[in-house]
């Protein structure tokens, strides 16, 4: 179950947003300042954050920095009372999924929240897939890992044997083990699996 984390120093707005989101069926957690929010924040929980950049933009952006570092990539929607292009650019560049100017239409906000939650969901799915691949990789012996890298690079058994200084027959055995441990039946499948990991890393 996803949680929408609401941070706004204005109690009235906080209460209004909380009511709106609750009415739409979202689970919310509300905070009036950045410090309290960071204390309570659990990156493991699915969901997104709606943060009022507040008057003090530095504090809003600083909070975003903290989230990016320790927040497990929590999607952030910024609300601001005073929209300024430099602030918006800075916020988006730092990874905000949206930047909305108050007062904001409920539908706009809700749509932004939904897409942020979807993003979070997708991210979490990928993260879990990544974790699975890493767990499979961890089960390989060092020699099997070396052979895996060679296979993914598209080399033949004969070439691999030559590069690793082993008999072609031995490489053939390692290859069978790798395919088995990684749970794939073809080289193509193996490459797809590994490329997901590569993507995650470069993302």
């Amino acid at each position, binding site marked *: 179950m996803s949680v929408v984390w609401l941070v706004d120093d*204005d109690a*009235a*707005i906080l*209460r*209004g*947003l909380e*009511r*709106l989101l*609750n*009415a*739409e069926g979202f689970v919310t957690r509300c905070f009036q300042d950045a410090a309290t929010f960071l204390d309570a924040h659990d990156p493991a929980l699915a969901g997104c954050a709606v943060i009022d950049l507040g*008057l*003090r933009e530095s504090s809003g952006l600083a909070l975003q920095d903290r989230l990016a570092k320790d927040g497990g990539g929590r999607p952030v929607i910024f*609300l601001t*009372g*005073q929209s300024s292009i430099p602030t918006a650019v800075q916020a988006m560049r730092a990874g905000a999924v949206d930047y909305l100017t*108050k*007062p*904001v*239409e*409920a539908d706009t906000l809700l749509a932004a929240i939904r897409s942020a939650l979807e993003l979070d969901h997708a991210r979490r799915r990928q993260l879990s897939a990544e974790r699975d691949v890493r767990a499979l990789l961890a089960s390989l012996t060092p020699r099997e890992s070396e052979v895996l890298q060679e296979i993914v690079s598209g080399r033949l058994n004969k070439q691999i044997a030559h590069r690793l200084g082993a008999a072609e027959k031995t490489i053939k055995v390692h290859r069978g083990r790798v395919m088995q441990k990684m749970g794939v039946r073809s080289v193509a499948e193996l490459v797809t699996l590994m490329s997901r990991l590569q993507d995650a890393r470069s993302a």
Partner: protein
Amino acid sequence: MARKLPKLPVRSLVSVLILLAALVFAGHAMAQSDDTRPRLLFIVESDSRLPLVKALHVEYLDMLRFNDPRELELNRTFLVERYGGLGLDAVMVLGAHALSYVVANREAFAPGAPIVYGGFGEAGMMTALSGQTLPDVSGVISPFDFRSTLDLALTVQPDAPEIVVITGSARFDRQWRSAFTSVIADTYRDLPVRFLPEATADEYLAEARTLDPGAIVLLLSVNLDAEGRRFLPVQFAEALAEASAAPVWSLYETQIGKGIVGGTVEDLSSTGREIGKMLRTAIAGDPLAEPVKVTAVPTVDWRAMQRHGLDLGRLPKGSRILFYEPTLWEQYRVFLIAVAAVVAAQTATIFGLVFHRRRYFRTQASLDLERSQLIHVSRNLRLGQLSASLAHEINQPLAAIQANAEAGARIAGRTPPDLVEIGAIFQDINNDVRRAASTIANLRRLMVKGEVTMERLDLNEIVRATLALAQSELANSGVQVRQVLSPGPVEVSGNGPQLQQIVLNLVLNASEAMDGLPEAAKTLRVSTVFHPGGAATLTVEDAGPGIPPDQREEVFRPFVSSKPLGLGVGLAICRSIAAAHGGSLAFVDPEAAGARIVLTLPPGGART
């Protein structure tokens, strides 16, 4: 000389002549001893009503009244008895008949004495000497010429309908009549001449009253009227001139000044001068010169001219105008010019001062206006600075209201709706509306433009309202504000927006002064104190770098700003507002680091 004549106490031909003769003599006579003094006999044809100088021997023959041979013989006996042995040096004779008498009898009472004569004209000469030239007899011949007088009258009265001539019934008067009628019959220069027949004085006067005012009246001589009344000619002239509707002209200068308009007459002063000269020659024993003919001068009485409305401009060139009463302007021209100059200078000064004063007030008014506009502009600049945070101040409640309203709509759509929650939502919406409204009200109070009114205010309220406006801005800058307000209201009299402007300026200045400091150090203290005397102070202290004592006045000068984009009028305006409230605004020594500025407002507020 002419001007002085009216001042003489006695105006008569004889007196003037004698006075002048005596004056000419004086220097000569006093230089000599008693024995060598000249002996002079004046023989006067007329009577003794003519006053004469006593120092000389004067005899009046009174020949107009006593002219039968017996009287003349008596006179001769008297003169011989009285003067025969004196050895007279000269005899002065006035009058033609007297001259002929003296010439005939000179050897009896003044043997060898030269005779100087005067007081008659050419005609008289003929009467007296029958055209003879005698040794030791000479004098001055007066110009009694009615023609030139008539010419003058015609020049001045060109439109006269007639000439009316009057003369009396005495022998002398009748001589004038015959002299006149022998020359002029019925007309003179195409103008009818009417010689009034001999009549009584009253008849003459009555006739004169009925004359056409444009007529010319020529008075020859009236010594005696038809009923035997005697006159001095000058007396009659005066009466006639007064009665006559028309201007009266005369042949004698002595009559001009008695109402006679004028005439072409001798100038008696020059006649007297000539007689005097001749007498000196006679006394010195030198041979007498030829008789001197005095020329007649057109002469008028200015007053009489005025009375008859005659135009001075018509007078021939060289005319004498007697009794001229100069106008104020003519008489006191220099004085009047000086007075006028002084008055003009004063007027100019007064106008200058009035103008200056008006300009001063106008300038003052426009300065006041400009100052109030400047105050307003400066205030708006400050508010502009706050605009972002003020927009936020209004935006926040709006955002809350919107969120609540959207939530409320959704909750209301459920079955069953959570009415308790909906009630809470409406309560919150209401609160937020109030919040936005109060921000706007605060703002509008500060932005009010127009008449600056003074009212009783609570300085604490001013501080609170201003800090509420600046709150977002201050928070945004990370400034912590501490309000240390006097308990209870701090009553002052003043203009709310202007006082708020001071507070806003001081607070924002303080905040800006702390820009470079770490957030924890950014503290701002605003305090009010209500002093026992009724004065109130507002103190704003910051933790910034402070202002060196020698700069504390400099910063109040207009266009002095430490801020790169500052206009530098904020503090100058604040001080002028404080001054307009009868108060003061100045930096004082801070308790710690930073700047400390104090606004003092007088007890009971201020003048407007």
